[in-house]
Structures are given as structure tokens and as C-alpha cells.
């Protein structure tokens, strides 16, 4: 609670927290967009979302360790994850698209455990980060530091989100995805290959997460067990923002990022994760109370 006083006495710290929250929040929003896409189109809550982010991070890390700029890792991570997403769909996910939601919840949970442990075996459990090679800006007489890679992560998240939106709106495949989301059976009757649409949707989601992960490893850090919090953040953002609203997803992502920064600063970093999870419960309970007034349930 001492830190709370610090915030009141030195308002410039608030700016630091707000900025950091915004930057990381944009990355949360990116992963959440992917989750909303898969949830809306395939009716699957993808629990391995956070592991896709983690994998993206490790790919960018490998790129950096091979001597290239880790910035190159962003498209590469997206590409590799796209392929992995496609493969996972063809191997497992297609069998559970029509199953009840808990089946897909558990199956993707199984995938997430597998990926966690695999990365743990390959890279070890240490916290890792990749040097982007970009510089730092100092604001307010050096009281506020802004690393340029965070700003880049922020901007790129927006650009990717926008590109996704344009793709869904204009591209043929994008339109097919939207049609399938609205009514898969009708889409099939109209001659849309929904199996391919599902595969593409799942792969695009993985690619979004991969790009997000590459940004995370440069601007922040990664480790094999970072996934679950990312999954739950995406989930939380999607329930707050709804499935079909890009602007809402982004604002919810930014809001969560900032709330988390403040909570971590005030309560102590060791309670930041607990805060995220308890916030999720609070959000769910809040939604539930609001719906009860409308004679509805959270379902």
C-alpha cells in the first residue's frame, strides 16, 4: 500500500503505468481477437491460446539466437504458427468442432499441457527475452521510460487487428468465414467448404497468437508456463467485449493491461497474476448479475 501513496505523490508514475498497460494491453487484445474468431466461428474456446503465444515467442527467440534480427521473427512466428494451427486442426480439432463445448475445452487444454511441457523439455523453464536492438525514449526528465519495441508492439498489434478486420470484411475467405459463423449449415448448402473455413480460422488464430508472442519476447519476456494467464486474459476480454466487436475487444484489452499494471504496482508483482484471475471471476459474477435482471443466464 506504500506504493499507492507513491502514486498519489508522484503522478508521473501513473503515466508510466498507463503507458506500460496500454502497450501490453494491445498484445492481449491481439490474442483475444483470435480467441473471439475461433469461438464465434467454430464454437470452441481454445485453451491453448496462451501456448500459441508462447510458441511464437520461442520462435522469435530462435531467430534472434541464430543471429538475425528478432523483428524477422514476427512474420516467421505467424507463418509457423499458421502451419501448426492448420496441422492441429487436421489432426485433432476437426473431430471436436461439432462436439459439446466441454470436449473442446478439455481437448485444447490437453494440447496446451503438451506444448508447455514440450517447450519446457526443449528450452528449459527459464524466463527468456530477445533483444530487439531498438532504443529507449526518456520522457518527463527521465522519470518515464518508453522502450521503442513496446511502442512498435502497440502499433503492430493495431495494424494486425485492422488487417484482420479488412480481411474478414473484403476477402473471399473472410466472407466465407463470416457466413460460416452466422450459420454453418446454410453456408454448406451455399457450397462453402466449411471444413476448410474452420481450418483457416484456427490457423489464422494461431498466427495472430504467434505474432503476439514474437512481440512479447522482445518487449517483455516469455517462459514455458506463461500460457494459461494469456488464455484467461483473452477469455476475459472476449466476455467483456463480445464476439463481434473489434473496437470493444481493443478497448477491453487496453483496459485490462492498465488495470493489471496498477494492481501489480500497488499489490506487489507476486499478486499480479492472482489479481488477473480474481478479476476474471469478478467479471463473470458481474455479467451474471446484469443478466439476471434481464431474466437471462450467462451461457
Amino acid at each position, binding site marked *: 500500500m506504500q506504493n499507492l501513496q507513491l502514486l498519489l505523490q508522484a503522478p508521473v508514475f501513473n503515466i508510466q503505468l498507463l503507458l506500460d498497460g496500454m502497450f501490453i494491453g494491445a498484445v492481449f487484445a491481439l490474442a483475444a481477437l483470435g480467441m473471439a474468431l475461433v469461438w464465434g466461428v467454430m464454437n470452441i474456446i481454445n485453451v491453448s491460446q496462451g501456448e500459441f503465444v508462447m510458441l511464437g515467442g520461442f520462435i522469435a527467440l530462435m531467430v534472434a539466437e541464430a543471429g538475425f534480427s528478432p523483428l524477422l521473427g514476427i512474420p516467421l512466428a505467424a507463418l509457423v504458427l499458421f502451419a501448426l494451427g492448420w496441422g492441429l486442426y487436421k489432426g485433432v480439432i476437426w473431430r471436436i468442432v461439432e462436439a459439446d463445448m466441454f470436449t473442446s475445452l478439455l481437448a485444447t487444454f490437453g494440447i496446451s499441457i*503438451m506444448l508447455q511441457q514440450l517447450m519446457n523439455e526443449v528450452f528449459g523453464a527459464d524466463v527468456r527475452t530477445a533483444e530487439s536492438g531498438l532504443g529507449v525514449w526518456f520522457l518527463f526528465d527521465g522519470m518515464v521510460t518508453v522502450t521503442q519495441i513496446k511502442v512498435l508492439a502497440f502499433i503492430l498489434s493495431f495494424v494486425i487487428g485492422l488487417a484482420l478486420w479488412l480481411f474478414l470484411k473484403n476477402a473471399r475467405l473472410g466472407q466465407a468465414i463470416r457466413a460460416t459463423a452466422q450459420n454453418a449449415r446454410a453456408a454448406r448448402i451455399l457450397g462453402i467448404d466449411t471444413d476448410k473455413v474452420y481450418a483457416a480460422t484456427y490457423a489464422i488464430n494461431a498466427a495472430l497468437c504467434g505474432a503476439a508472442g514474437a512481440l512479447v519476447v522482445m518487449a517483455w519476456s516469455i517462459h514455458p508456463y506463461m500460457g494459461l494467464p494469456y488464455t484467461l486474459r483473452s477469455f476475459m476480454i472476449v466476455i467483456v467485449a463480445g464476439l463481434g466487436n473489434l473496437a470493444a475487444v481493443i478497448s477491453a484489452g487496453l483496459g485490462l493491461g492498465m488495470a493489471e499494471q496498477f494492481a501489480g504496482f500497488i499489490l506487489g508483482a507476486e499478486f499480479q497474476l492472482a489479481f488477473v484471475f480474481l478479476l476474471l471471476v469478478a467479471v463473470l459474477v458481474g455479467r451474471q448479475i446484469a443478466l439476471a435482471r434481464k431474466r437471462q443466464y450467462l451461457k
Partner: protein
Amino acid sequence: MNRKMAQLLALAALFGIGLLGPWLAPSYISQFAQLWLFIVLALSWDIMGGQTGYNSFGNIIFFGIGMYVSAVAQVGLVWPVAEYTAAKGGGTEFVFNADQIHAGLALGIPLGGLVAMLAAIVLGALLLGMRGHYFAIATLGLAVATAELAAGWDYIGAGSGMVTPTLPGDMNGPVLFYYLSLGLAIVTILVFAWVYSTRFRLAINAIRDDEDKAEALGHHTTRNKMTAWAISALFTGMAGAIYGNLSGFIDPHDIAFNAEIGVWMILMAILGGKGTLWGPIIGAIVFFISKELFWTYLLGWQRVALGLLIVIIVVFFPEGIMGWVRERWPHLFAPPHLDDEEDDETPAGADEDKEAAHA
């Protein structure tokens, strides 16, 4: 009444093996004790996941709560808890005699169960107004949050954990904990068999099969879900209490709120067959034996295998072993007939309903 006899026989055989276990395989006594506890965990998970249709990723919370509450009670009966945990249990001055151990267990195990049950009621009041997958994910978040909170609480040893009371040299710990585990398993199986013979099973199955219809019938669905979860937590908490003593050391992440055990609970129930009395029991036995056999050979990759196992079971065998048995021998699962006495109450003219047969 064939079926009832078969069930009784199977139960008797299970308990017989249980009682003789320590003589049959004395060197595996701790593993067998774990197996009994795993049966309790699987059965307890299934009353929510299988019978009520609310899949909880958070039952590990009750396991951990039961474990910590029991340990704190056991220690607290004799020594100041804060000093005990501050000494990391290593301090030689904290000794317990046999009477203190017995009293501690007699208090700690039921208390662990009761506090876990209380936690289920509080969490249930918050979460059980929502439907299926929202509940599942909320419990997933809560499980991790609880582990983080426990790891930050100094009174119970924070991140470095807590040692359960060390038994005096003349006590046979493994045998004591084995029979406690066996006893808990027997009580759990009997209690669940009884619960499933009442209308409560119908009420929670109704929630699983069609919750809107259950509401339309005026059921107190949230209350019934909370009750099911509370029963689940009671036994999970007691299992946790014994498990903590069995392992001798409680670590917030690796033992008490071990996410892996949280997953095993689900896996055992699904493997054996959700929504049946015998499914989770069989699932626990099969899972435990294969785990013990194969884990040793997989060296570090066992968790990867666990993930793979989940995917395979969920995708390819969602009905579990009992589902497979049901397919092969459907007559074993013919709808249960009511007591014979019922036929005395046959309403007059029972044959007049032929017309409906054509409806």
C-alpha cells in the same frame, strides 16, 4: 435384482483386496494408499462433472484447502503454527507423541473436509448461477489464483511450504495412512451409492440433461448444484488432508494445488465413464496402475504424455470404459426397475393405455 448383487459383490471384492493390501504387497503400501485417495477424488469430481454436467477445473482447490487446514489443525493442537512454519518444520523442538498425532488426525481430516465444503458453498454461490463452460473457465482461473495466494501467505509457510507433523519413531505411518485412505474410500463409495439412489441424482441429472427444463419445473437449480459441489468438496478436502500427511510435506504448487492432480481427477472420471458410480472407480484404478507402470519409463516426458492422453481420451473415448461396456453388454444397463411391491399398486385397468402406445 441381479444387478444389485453384482454391485455388492464387486464392492465386497474391492474392500477385501483393500483390507488385505498391506499383506499382499507391503512395499507398495503408499502407492495403494494413493490409489484409494484417487478413487475418492475421481468420484467426487464426477458428481459435478458427470452427474450434474458442470465440469470443474477447480476441485484441486478443495484438495489443497483440506490439506492445509488439516495440517494447520494438527500442528495447532500442539504448537504455535506461525513459529512452526517459520522454522520450516526443520526445527527439532517440534515433536509430536502418538496421542497428539491421533488427536490431530481425528480433528484435522474432518475439519479439512468441512472447510473445503464451506469454500465450495461460497464459490458456488458466486459461480453456479452461470452455465457450463463459463463455470469451467472460472474454476480454472480460481485454481491458479488460490495456488498463488497460498504461495504468498507466510502463516502456512508461503512458497516454501509446510511439513506435516512428524510421527514418533514407534508409529507405523504408512500403515496408519493406508487404512485412513481405505476407510475414506469405503465411506465415499457408500455415501455416493446412497446419494445416487435418491431423487437428488434425478435432480442433478435433470440439470445436466436440460437445465432450462429443470428450471421450468421449478427446481432450485443453483441450490442443487451448490449441494452437489459441496458434497464433492467435502470428500475431496478429506482426501487432501490424508494426502498431505501421506506425502509428509505440503508445497503450494507441487502438492496442495498441483494443477496436474487437478487434471487427473477429470481424466480418471472420463476414462472410466462419466456419470456412473463405477466409472470413476474403474477409471481411477486403470489410470493409477498405468501411471505407475509407465511414468517411470517416460522420464521427464510424462507430462507431454499426460497432455496427449487427455486429447486421445477426450476425442476418441469420451464415453470411457463404462461406455464401452454398455455398448458390448447393454442388458447390464437396462433401465432399473422399481421395487417389486410397486406392482401391488398397479392402478386398476392398467391395460387401457394401449391407445397411447400408438401415439
